[in-house]
């Protein structure tokens, strides 16, 4: 069964009651061991691949050398024939035959190394895909497990502190009320601020003798005398 299915089945079936884990700790450990094993296999396969590639390069180099050598000896044979030295030409031809056999062997080795390298590369890719998948699945199990543990810690905390769980609507209502209250306070403070601002301006104007002046006792007396 896939991990995904296991999680769904366990959550639906209420297997998580009484702290029972989705996948028990032991199987998580087995899973982690499998991941470590795959990682080890990939490391070994990569080392093998390096070996094979080195051998293939060596074979290719030797093949190239043999081919150069064959060309060289073909030149020698032609020169011997031009000198009518049949005996020497045959000797060179025998050498060429020897070189060609070697070249065929190297050619074969080269091809077989190339094939193994391709196979190893494919194997490594496949193992890496598998490893990524293992890790993804393990992360799913671990996350489910940790969310479960976190939830039970939160639930325990709630019941321990005796705090009543509000409904979503009630919570929102309270938060909005607090926000409105805060906004009102802010508005009141602003109003107060602006009133203070007004009165301080008035005082400054009065000091400067601008605007309505406070009537002094002397000015009242003057007014009465004038009647």
């Amino acid at each position: 069964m896939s991990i995904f299915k296991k999680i769904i089945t366990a959550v639906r079936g209420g297997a998580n009651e009484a702290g029972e884990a989705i996948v028990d700790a032991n199987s998580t450990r087995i899973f982690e061991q499998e991941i470590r094993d795959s990682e080890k296999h990939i490391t070994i396969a990569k080392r093998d691949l390096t070996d094979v590639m080195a051998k293939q390069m060596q074979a290719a180099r030797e093949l190239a050398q043999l081919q150069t050598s064959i060309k060289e000896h073909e030149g020698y044979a032609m020169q011997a024939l031009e000198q009518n030295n049949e005996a020497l030409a045959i000797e060179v031809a025998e050498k060429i035959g020897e070189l060609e056999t070697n070249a065929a062997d190297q050619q074969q080795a080269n091809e077989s190394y190339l094939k193994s390298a391709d196979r190893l590369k494919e194997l490594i890719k496949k193992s890496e895909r598998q490893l990524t998948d293992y890790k993804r699945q393990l992360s799913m199990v671990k996350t489910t497990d940790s969310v479960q543990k976190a939830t039970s810690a939160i639930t325990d905390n709630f019941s321990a502190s005796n705090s009543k769980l509000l409904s979503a609507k009630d919570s929102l209502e309270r938060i909005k009320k607090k926000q409105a209250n805060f906004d009102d306070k802010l508005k009141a403070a602003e109003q107060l601020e602006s009133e203070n601002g007004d009165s301080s301006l008035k005082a400054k104007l009065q000091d400067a003798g601008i605007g309505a002046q406070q009537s002094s006792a002397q000015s009242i007396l003057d007014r009465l005398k004038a009647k």
Partner: protein
Amino acid sequence: MNIHKIATHLNQLKDATETGFDFDCTPIDGDIDVLQVEILGREEIPIFLSISDNQILCIAYLWGEDEVKADLKANMMEAMLEMNIPMPLSAFAKVEDKYVVFGALSINSSLEDIELEIVTLSDNSLEVITEMDTYLK
């Protein structure tokens, strides 16, 4: 990254906040460490933060199965699915019988990223409850 580092950072922010909110963090004991993050003025809907091997999970609990109007449940689910991608940084989920919004961050996230995640999650949860109001008792 561990929850105590996050708690210390958020609690000391005050005026240095990048998001304009005040935080109050309390670690909760249990099998794994959980940090309860309250945003001042929004204490009713705290954010719970936990850290596993490869990610930081932030969860806000929205409402329980018992708060959903049974005959409108399918409509609510559809509305949630439709809202899932447009909703920034968060996604819907269900934990046991509770509907939640959550965000998952890389274990290498900065403290500023975490602060932004928490605030966005809180904004999202308030908005979601407002929008889904018709489906709830």
